């Protein structure tokens, strides 16, 4: 039993080359590090020593290792294929706790490579969940198991993204082992698009370590160390192993698709595929928050192609911005539809635009035509003005808002409806108008200085009054002329 455990540890913990060398070393390390990591006393057997720390951490650790255990279990059965392994469930459960190893110095970490499956185990399924856990446990430094779990919910999106990157990275590594290597190169580089600042460094690291499988674990560990807190978050995010499985499946499918479509890939294709994958990811990631779903979708999309990954990221933000823009445009089109008469039944942007253009053209033509007409109509202008104003006032009488706004603008020179001149034409109407007007103006502009009773003599110099007012500023001192003094209070 002990031998099996050691062998398993060797398989998981070290590269194929180091199997024999490090198996004992690993166990020794584990025994060595056990007291350092928690208050649990060191146990003679590595497995036993690891179990108490697990059980001693009350909070979240309990469910977590249990979640890991079945996953690990599968791998172990598949990889080792030994039924005797089942007897050591507890030991296996403690396997992923590479923390004792991780807690050692970094040099130790590097020397004892984390769980990276050697190429000799191609059949080993690249379960993202397991890899996450392995990565997390192997590369965590200084953080207790409890802390890891506690930190999980408090992580921000950025670390989550990073973690997902790391996860995908591990997936990449594993899939790389099972599939062609060039694919894998594209995959990790794809993640660079998530966050340029972080990606560049990580991408370099990833590409470097992917290029040579020997140093995989080292680089992986580095990457993992950098995002140890993130990976804890990742583990937390993907603790339900089904999501990890989904991600892995999707990645592999994407890679297969990529294999098929190795040639020129149109952006539309990419967009389509990306949206497809994105939709699927979004469906599956409904459990997590929107952020995580987005990360997963990004990750899944990036699992597509190296070049496309960047555009995938760009497409993502582009699509969002475009969606917003499209919504704005449709909103405005709807508003225009209400404005333009006879457009309610029209559907489609093109026809709507045509209608709008025609309407604007017709309005402009009307203005031109009416202006030509008005050029001929001048006599009795004052008359028409007052009547027009009466009309307007009657219209707006029901809506005092216009008058209020009007008076507030202070730009309306006081109009003195003259009753003398209008005596011969609907005088009664005008009287009412003038009364209404005076009342309105009085109430609206109580602070007007120089306000006097509407002069009855304003009718004749109406035009002059208007013209003179045009030259006045708001600060223009009151003119000596009596005519202009009154409206000066309202001078524009």
């Amino acid at each position, binding site marked *: 039993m002990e031998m099996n455990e050691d062998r398993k540890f060797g398989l998981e913990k070290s590269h194929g080359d180091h199997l024999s060398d490090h198996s004992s070393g690993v166990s020794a390390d584990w025994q060595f590090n056990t007291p350092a990591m928690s208050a649990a006393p060191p146990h003679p057997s590595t497995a036993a020593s690891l179990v108490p720390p697990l059980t001693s951490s009350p909070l979240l650790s309990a469910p977590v290792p249990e979640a890991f255990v079945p996953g690990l279990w599968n791998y172990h059965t598949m990889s080792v294929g030994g039924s005797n392994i089942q007897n050591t469930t507890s030991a296996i459960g403690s396997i992923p706790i590479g923390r004792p190893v991780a807690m050692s110095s970094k040099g130790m970490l590097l020397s004892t490579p984390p769980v990276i499956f050697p190429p000799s185990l191609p059949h080993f399924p690249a379960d993202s969940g397991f890899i996450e856990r392995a990565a997390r446990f192997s590369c965590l430094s200084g953080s207790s198991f409890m802390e890891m779990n506690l930190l999980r919910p408090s992580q921000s999106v950025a670390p989550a993204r990073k973690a997902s990157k790391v996860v995908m990275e591990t997936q990449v590594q594993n899939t790389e082992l099972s599939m062609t290597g060039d694919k894998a190169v594209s995959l990790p580089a794809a993640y660079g698009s998530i966050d340029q600042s972080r990606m560049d460094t990580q991408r370099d690291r990833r590409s470097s370590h992917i290029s040579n499988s020997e140093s995989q674990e080292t680089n992986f560990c580095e990457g993992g160390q950098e995002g140890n807190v993130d990976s804890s978050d990742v583990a937390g995010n993907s603790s339900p192993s089904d999501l990890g499985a989904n991600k892995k499946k999707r990645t592999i499918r994407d890679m297969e698709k990529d294999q098929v479509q190795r040639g020129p890939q149109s952006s539309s294709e990419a967009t389509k595929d990306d949206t497809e994958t994105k939709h699927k990811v979004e469906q599956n990631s409904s459990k997590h928050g929107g952020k995580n779903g987005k990360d997963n979708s990004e990750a899944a999309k990036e699992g597509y192609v190296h070049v496309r990954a960047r555009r995938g990221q760009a497409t993502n933000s582009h699509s969002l911005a475009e969606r917003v823009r499209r919504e704005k445009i449709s909103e405005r089109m709807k508003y225009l539809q209400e404005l333009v008469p006879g457009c309610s039944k029209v559907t489609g942007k093109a026809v709507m635009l045509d209608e709008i253009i025609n*309407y604007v053209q017709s*309005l402009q033509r009307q203005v031109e035509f009416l202006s030509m007409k008005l050029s001929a109509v001048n006599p009795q202008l004052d008359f028409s003005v007052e*009547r027009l104003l009466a*009309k307007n006032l009657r219209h707006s009488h029901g809506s005092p808002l216009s008058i209020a706004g009007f008076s507030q603008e202070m*730009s309306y020179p006081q109009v003195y409806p003259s009753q003398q001149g209008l005596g011969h034409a609907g005088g009664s109407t005008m009287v009412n108008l003038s009364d209404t007007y005076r009342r309105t103006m009085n109430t609206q502009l109580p602070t007007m200085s120089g306000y006097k009773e509407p002069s009855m003599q304003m009718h004749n110099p109406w035009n002059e009054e*208007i*013209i003179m007012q*045009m030259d006045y500023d708001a600060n223009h001192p009151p003119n000596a002329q009596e005519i202009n003094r009154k409206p000066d209070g309202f001078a*524009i």
Partner: protein
Amino acid sequence: MDSENSACGNPNPNPTLGPSKLMLAFRFLRALSLVHRTTPASSRTCRGRRIERAAYASMAYSAGTGRGWSRAVLRRLHHRARRRAVAPRRLSTTAGNRAEALRQLVPGGAGMDYCTLLEETADYIKCLSMQVELMQGIVDSSSSYGP
């Protein structure tokens, strides 16, 4: 019109409601009377053009400077008043693209993105329809009283 008062530099106090009809009426009528006073009776077309410019100016002033199209109209008026009469652009559907045609119609539409263009078009339509109503009212009232 040059004589048009340029004191309305404030953006429209009620942008959502649009310019008040009363304001528009006053401005336009004022300008109209001025045109009638200043231009000789012989040149009808000239007066007509001036009235049209006055209409646009009063529209733009009433709308305030918060609107792109109103600023463009005022800019055009102030710049071209010295050179020649502002000829209203009639060319539009010659442009195959509808957005281009709309840009040519709405003043200042050339430098706008599509989204803003739609917004400005809506406001422009509102002001234009108000102006047309006003002018129609003037014509009707004047015609009812005499030849």
